[in-house]
C-alpha cells in the first residue's frame, strides 16, 4: 500500500504575523517558515501506518516555490521515502491545489491521501474535501483517529458537537486534526539520510491543468486593535461594572 502525504510551507505558528503597510498581504521576508502544523500530523500518521506494516511507501508532495523542497526534506527526515515538488511561484488557491493533487494521485495511485485539515496561513479548510470530490474517493475530514482495516478504515472525526465515527472504503482522503497524534522530531542521522532521498521536480504549468486564480485579494489589514481596559480592585467592583457599565450580566 502506498501513501501520499501533502505538506505546505507556511509562516511558523509561533511568529507574530505582521500586515504589510500597503495592505498587499502579510510580511514573509526574513520570517521563519515551517511545515503547516496539521501536515506534520499527516506525515506522522503515514509513518505510523507504515511502521504497523500496512503500507510500504510514503510519498510527500508539496506545491510552491523552490523552498517548498525544504519542507519536503523535513518530511523525508521524519521518515517518508521520496518527494514530489510541483514548482510554482504563484500563490495557488485550494481549487488549483486539489486539481494538482488529484493529478498526482492518478499517476501514483496511493491507497490513502493524508493532509492537514487546514493551512494556518489562508485558513481555507478546503483542499482535502475538494481532492476527495475530484477523485470520487470518500473523505474523512478532521480525523483524530484512523484505524486501517482490510479494505476500509474507521475514522474518528472532530466535529463541533463532539466526535463522530465513519467507515470509509479504501482509497480515501483523510484531513488530519492536530489531535490525531504527536509528530516526531527528525533525528540527526535521519536528517543526513534524507538528503539522499529523491525529490522529483515538475513545473506546475507543465501539468496541463487550469491553475488560474479565481479570487482577487483586494486588501489585507490588521484586525481592529482591542483597547486595554481597566483593572478592578475586587470582585464586588467587577460585578458592579459588569452589571451597570458593560450591562452584560
Amino acid at each position: 500500500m502506498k501513501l501520499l502525504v501533502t505538506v505546505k510551507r507556511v509562516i511558523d505558528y509561533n511568529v507574530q504575523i505582521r500586515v504589510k503597510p500597503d495592505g498587499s498581504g502579510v510580511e514573509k521576508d526574513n520570517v521563519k517558515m515551517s511545515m503547516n502544523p496539521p501536515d506534520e500530523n499527516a506525515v506522522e500518521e503515514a509513518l505510523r501506518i507504515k511502521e504497523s506494516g500496512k503500507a510500504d511507501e510514503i510519498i510527500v508532495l508539496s506545491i510552491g516555490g523552490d523552498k517548498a523542497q525544504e519542507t519536503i526534506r523535513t518530511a523525508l527526515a521524519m521518515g517518508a521515502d521520496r518527494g514530489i515538488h510541483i514548482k510554482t511561484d504563484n500563490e495557488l488557491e485550494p481549487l488549483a491545489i486539489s486539481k494538482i493533487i488529484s493529478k498526482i494521485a492518478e499517476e501514483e495511485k496511493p491507497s490513502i491521501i493524508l493532509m492537514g485539515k487546514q493551512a494556518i496561513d489562508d485558513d481555507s479548510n478546503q483542499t482535502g474535501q475538494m481532492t476527495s470530490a475530484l477523485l470520487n474517493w470518500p473523505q474523512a475530514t478532521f480525523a483524530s483517529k484512523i484505524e486501517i482495516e482490510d479494505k476500509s478504515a474507521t475514522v474518528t472525526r472532530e466535529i463541533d458537537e463532539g466526535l463522530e465515527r465513519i467507515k470509509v472504503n479504501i482509497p480515501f482522503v483523510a484531513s488530519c486534526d492536530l489531535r490525531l497524534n504527536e509528530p516526531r522530531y527528525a533525528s540527526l542521522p535521519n536528517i543526513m539520510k534524507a538528503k539522499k532521498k529523491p525529490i522529483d521536480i515538475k513545473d506546475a504549468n507543465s501539468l496541463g491543468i487550469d491553475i488560474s486564480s479565481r479570487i482577487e485579494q483586494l486588501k489585507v489589514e490588521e484586525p481592529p486593535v482591542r483597547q486595554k481596559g481597566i483593572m478592578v480592585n475586587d470582585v464586588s467592583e467587577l460585578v458592579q461594572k459588569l452589571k451597570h457599565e458593560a450591562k452584560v450580566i
Partner: protein
Amino acid sequence: MSILVLAEHNNIDIKSSTLNTISAASQIEQEIDVLVTGFQCEELAKKIAKCEKVSKVIFVDNEKLKNPIAENIEPIVLSVAEKYSHIMAPATTFGKNIFPRIAVKLDLAQISDVIKIISNDTFMRPIYAGNAIATVKSNDKTKIITIRPTSFDPVETSGGSDIVESLEFETQNNSVEFIDREESHSERPELSTARVVISGGRGLQSAENFKLLNEIADKLNAAVGASRAAVDAGYVSNDYQVGQTGKVVVPDLYIAVGISGAIQHLAGMKESKVIVAINKDEEAPIFNVADYGLNADLFEALPQLSSELDKLNTIQQ
C-alpha cells in the same frame, strides 16, 4: 437571482448557525431558499419555512440523510445549484465538510469563513487565525460561501413564507458509512454559540477545581471553555478548547480564569464583546485584551464571584 442556504440541524431542531447564515444571505438578496436534507424531519422543515427572510424551503427526506454525510448531501445541492447566484452554509464542521465538494464539482472557488459582506461579490474573511483580515472579490459566476455564524445576528424564527417544497432524491453513495456520534452532552449552552463563556486555564490546577467554574456558569447561563494548556494537562476534554486549534467564540461576555493569554488562545476569543480576566500574575498578557482585569488568586475570587452573583439575583427578585 436568489440565494440557497444549506440548513444545519439535528432532524428535530434548527441549529442557530443556520439562522445566522440566513441573516448573512439577506444582506445580499431578499429571495432566499433554504435546503433541508434529513430524515423524518418534516416538522423541522415547516419550522424553518416560518423563519424570517425565508422565501421557500426545499426539503429532501430519506434515511441515508439521517446523518450529514458530505458525499450524500453534495449531489442534492448540485442538483439545484444552477438557479442560484450564491450558495451558503455556516462555517461549522457541518458546512466546512460539505461545501468545498460543491465548489470543486462546479469548478468554482470557495470563500471560507466570511465575517462581513461588502457587496454581492466582495467579502471579508479572517486569515492567519484572525491575525489579519482579507478583503476578497470572487470573479466566479456563482459564489460558494461559508459564513462565520457569530459574525451575523440570527434571523427571527417567525415571519417567513411558510412554503415547503418537497424534492425526491435517490442517494446512491456506498463508500462511506456512518457509525456513531458521541455528543458532548451538557445542560449548559453550546460553547460556540453561548452568550456568556467562562474559561479556565492551567491556573485551575486540576480537573476537580474546574468544577468551580461550573457553579459560576450555572448562575450566568454560560458555557464552560478551557485553554489549550488546561486541555493538555488533562483537566477537561478537547471539546472545551477555545483558541486557534480549538473553537472560536464571540460571546457578549468572556471570563478568562487562570489563563495567561497565549497567542493561540487569544485567536479564539479576542473578538468577544466584553472580556474579563482573573489572574494572579499581574504581567499575564491576557490583561492586555481584557476590558476588566482582576489581579487576584482565583481560588479566592471565584467563591466571591459566586456569592456576589447571588446577591445580584436577590436584589433583582
